[in-house]
């Protein structure tokens, strides 16, 4: 009975959030960009492959390139402008008046902001994979899933940080700027860590792989078969279980950031 009583307000808040985040034709434009971008930027870099498994990993890595940036734009818009502006302008008070716990309100908002965006992204990506390389997608589904897990972790981390900043500063615009700065900082740090590893110090690469685990997975697959002509052969190559460990740790970090968001929203928001 209690479940039914909280279920309906939850759906109401979720529906309101959906309507706010995906006004016609925002979702349609992003769906088109995801689908078109996925194919346009798909895998020509992954065409020279030593095995189907490496090809599967390489294809997913290239498939996620630009569409992942499009996903980030959608998430920033939903989290920073959507939720951030709701907090900034006090609109969130209307949602808090529903007979729901604060964390349920945040969950409904995040389900709309992140869940739907991720669902659209992954749906189109998997469709593209099954169209492009059906046999590889079927046989190496675990490799593909793992590569997606590794690729999505930094995006979720950035989304969590943007959310935390939006909640603490109560400024949607500023949170958006933080998100954009973080995105480019990640790219720069990634290149620097790789360059340092080239010069013989693996520490930066290993440390960065904790929040960017696809780097560990990339290095694991680079160690597969014949050595890559790019980079010294003695560069850090983790084992499969180590790569899995890096992915696991990155999701623990993501979970901690979102937990902080929930705690702040629940107890410290002061609305």
């Amino acid at each position, binding site marked *: 009975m209690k479940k039914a009583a909280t279920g309906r307000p939850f759906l109401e808040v979720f*529906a309101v959030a959906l309507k706010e985040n995906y006004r016609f034709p925002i979702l349609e434009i992003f769906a088109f960009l995801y689908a078109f971008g996925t194919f346009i930027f*798909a895998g020509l870099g992954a065409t020279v492959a030593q095995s189907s498994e490496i090809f599967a990993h390489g294809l997913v890595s290239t498939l996620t390139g630009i569409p992942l940036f499009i996903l980030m734009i959608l998430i920033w818009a939903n989290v920073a402008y959507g939720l951030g502006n709701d907090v900034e302008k006090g609109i969130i008070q209307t949602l808090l008046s529903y007979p729901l716990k604060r964390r349920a309100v945040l969950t409904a908002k995040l389900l709309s902001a992140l869940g739907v965006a991720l669902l659209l992204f992954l749906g189109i990506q998997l469709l593209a994979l099954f169209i492009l390389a059906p*046999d590889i997608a079927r046989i190496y589904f675990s490799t593909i899933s793992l590569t997606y897990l590794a690729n999505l972790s930094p995006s979720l981390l950035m989304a969590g940080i943007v959310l935390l900043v939006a909640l603490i500063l109560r400024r949607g615009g500023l949170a958006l700027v933080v998100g954009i700065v973080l995105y480019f900082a990640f790219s720069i740090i990634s290149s620097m860590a790789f360059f340092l590893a080239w010069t013989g110090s693996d520490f930066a690469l290993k440390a960065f792989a904790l929040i960017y685990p696809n780097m560990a997975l990339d290095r694991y697959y680079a160690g597969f078969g014949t050595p890559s002509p790019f980079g010294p052969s003695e560069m850090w190559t983790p084992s499969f279980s180590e790569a899995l460990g890096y992915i696991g740790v990155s999701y623990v970090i993501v979970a901690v950031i979102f937990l902080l968001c929930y705690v702040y929203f629940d107890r410290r928001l002061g609305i």
Partner: protein
Amino acid sequence: MRWISLAGRLGTVLLMIGLALGLVSFIPAAPMGGFSSGGSGSAQPEKYQVLGTTRTLTPQTGLRISINTSIETHFYILNVFEGDLHEWAMSWVRERFPDLDESAVWWASRNVTVLDAFLESHSDTVLWDSNVINDLSKEFFPTTVSNATTVIAYPSLETAQFEYEIESITSLAPRERTLLPAEFLALFGLVLAIPWIFFTRIRKAPSQ
């Protein structure tokens, strides 16, 4: 009304994905420089021969094949190294005809019957089979990473004249795989979107 809205928005999203796929399917495959072979000549009756060399293909790198023959032939793309195919054919002949000398074994291993025996015992290696053809023009993309060897077989008793050209090509998404899903998604999306468009856009208009 909410269900109509939900289905309608789902429909418009599917329609947009279908349109994007349709647009991608019109981007033609491009040749990969330096990976082409071709030629012409006459082929012995009841023999087969390998055209070009074995190439590594992926779902995005395929072959553009063009063949013209004077008699009906069979064309195959096999997921096997050329050397392995010849080795298997030679050992198959040696097992059945132990008295033949090496040059006779080599000549007999090029018989169509030997190729048929290979295809029967290695049916999983057949990536594509043309059936009986005179002219062929095709773009082929495998669904997985493959070592493609192109083989032409002449089951006829006459000597055949042929011309062929095989070149490696690359494509973002092969048209034969994208066009059907694009049509299906666009159509399904349109069906879902029509009630929503009718109720929210057309019927609403007069009252505004």
